[in-house]
């Protein structure tokens, strides 16, 4: 019994320490952010490897989520004779929920784990210690550009994901299932609101971008300097960020629900 309590206490205090360490780390990054603009080259390179290289995966994912939504909603809508609102349904679901969440999950799997592994490996091979020895601040040089690049990239990737999704839904809905193209677009215009739907989706993606990027650099920077530590850091990044995004999406949706 005492064993159990002690084990619980240890894991709880470990969790609290990680959580607290994460908060402290986030605060530590703040003063570096303005200075990072002085080295835009570092950020561009990271946007390339984090954002531009994720593009194909995101476009692929968005397109097929859109086609799936069109097929799935058609089978329900056709029973009520409401197939004209297929476009509005797919767009609303994409920009509000699926876009931010699925794009973030893909982004973390594609780019986030890579960032964590890269930074973790630098820690394991003493490159970070070498930088400190040369009076180069590793946070300024390594962490902040990756963080900023993630925050810039994710909302753009989400927007691309949603656009590809809408086009996918259009392709299936109009060309395959015979929805009227005029009704498809006019229902989107009528039902989907710029601020409430698109705005809240982009706000969500910004929040996810900040938290997912923070999680990646934190896990990488604090990885155990061993081969197993690096792999654990990459795994933990994906697991924790996915759980966090799904949980936080529920909370944000509850908060942004019109009249909810």
């Amino acid at each position, binding site marked *: 019994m005492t064993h159990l309590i002690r084990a619980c206490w240890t894991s709880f205090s470990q969790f609290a320490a990680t959580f607290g360490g994460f908060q402290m780390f986030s605060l530590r990054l703040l003063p570096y952010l303005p200075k990072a603009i002085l080295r835009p*080259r570092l950020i*561009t*390179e990271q*946007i*390339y490897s984090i*954002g*531009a290289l994720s*593009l194909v995966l995101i476009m692929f994912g968005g397109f097929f989520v859109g086609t799936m939504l069109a097929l799935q909603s058609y089978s329900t809508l056709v029973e*009520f004779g409401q197939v004209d609102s297929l476009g509005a349904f797919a*767009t609303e679901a994409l*920009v509000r929920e699926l876009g931010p969440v699925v794009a973030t999950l893909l982004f973390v799997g594609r780019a986030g784990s890579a960032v964590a592994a890269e930074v973790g490996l630098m820690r394991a091979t003493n490159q970070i210690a070498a930088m400190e020895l040369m009076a180069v601040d590793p946070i300024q040089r390594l962490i902040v550009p990756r963080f900023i690049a993630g925050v*810039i*990239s994710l*909302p*753009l*990737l989400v*927007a*691309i994901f*949603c*656009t590809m999704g*809408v086009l996918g839904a259009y392709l299936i809905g109009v060309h395959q299932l015979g929805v009227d193209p005029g009704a498809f*677009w*006019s229902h*989107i*215009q*009528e*039902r*989907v*609101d*710029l*601020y*409430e*739907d*698109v705005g809240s989706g*982009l706000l969500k993606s910004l929040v996810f971008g900040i938290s997912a990027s923070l999680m990646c650099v934190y896990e990488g920077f604090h990885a155990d300097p061993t081969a197993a530590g690096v792999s654990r850091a990459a795994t933990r990044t994906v697991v924790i960020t996915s759980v966090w995004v799904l949980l936080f999406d529920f909370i944000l949706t509850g908060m942004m629900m019109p009249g909810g």
Partner: protein
Amino acid sequence: MTSNTHAIDISVGLFILLGLGSVMFLTAQTLGSSGFSTGETYTLQARFDHIGDLKTRAPVALAGVTIGRVSQITVDPIDYRATVEIRIDSKYDQLPIDTYASIATAGLLGGKYIELEPGGDEEVLRDQGEIEFTQSAILLENLIGKFMLNAKTESND
């Protein structure tokens, strides 16, 4: 090295352009409903006995064309009538003062909206004015209830 960084710059530029283009696309496709509200509007009030399930942001239509939206719905605590505030595009500021407002349903299952029927008066409704002539929402449940009651009394006779 130079050509390598050049390639990176180009792909980052393309990526950001594509992202901003997508934001523009989503904005353009969805602007229809909210783009309207950014223009000049004026406010009118109408009071109804019952509004059914009219919601804020429901369309206000004149001859079937949307010219405004419901901006606020409250209940008057003194005479218990619903006060509906509507915003109408300033382009349509020539509505006669005896305009008739009714709550209509779009299709059989569609949402409620306000349909305006202009009267013949020369005087026009001004900002913050009130539409005097209104008709409440027709509640399908009540109609069915009345119909069934009638059928029952007839069969009893």
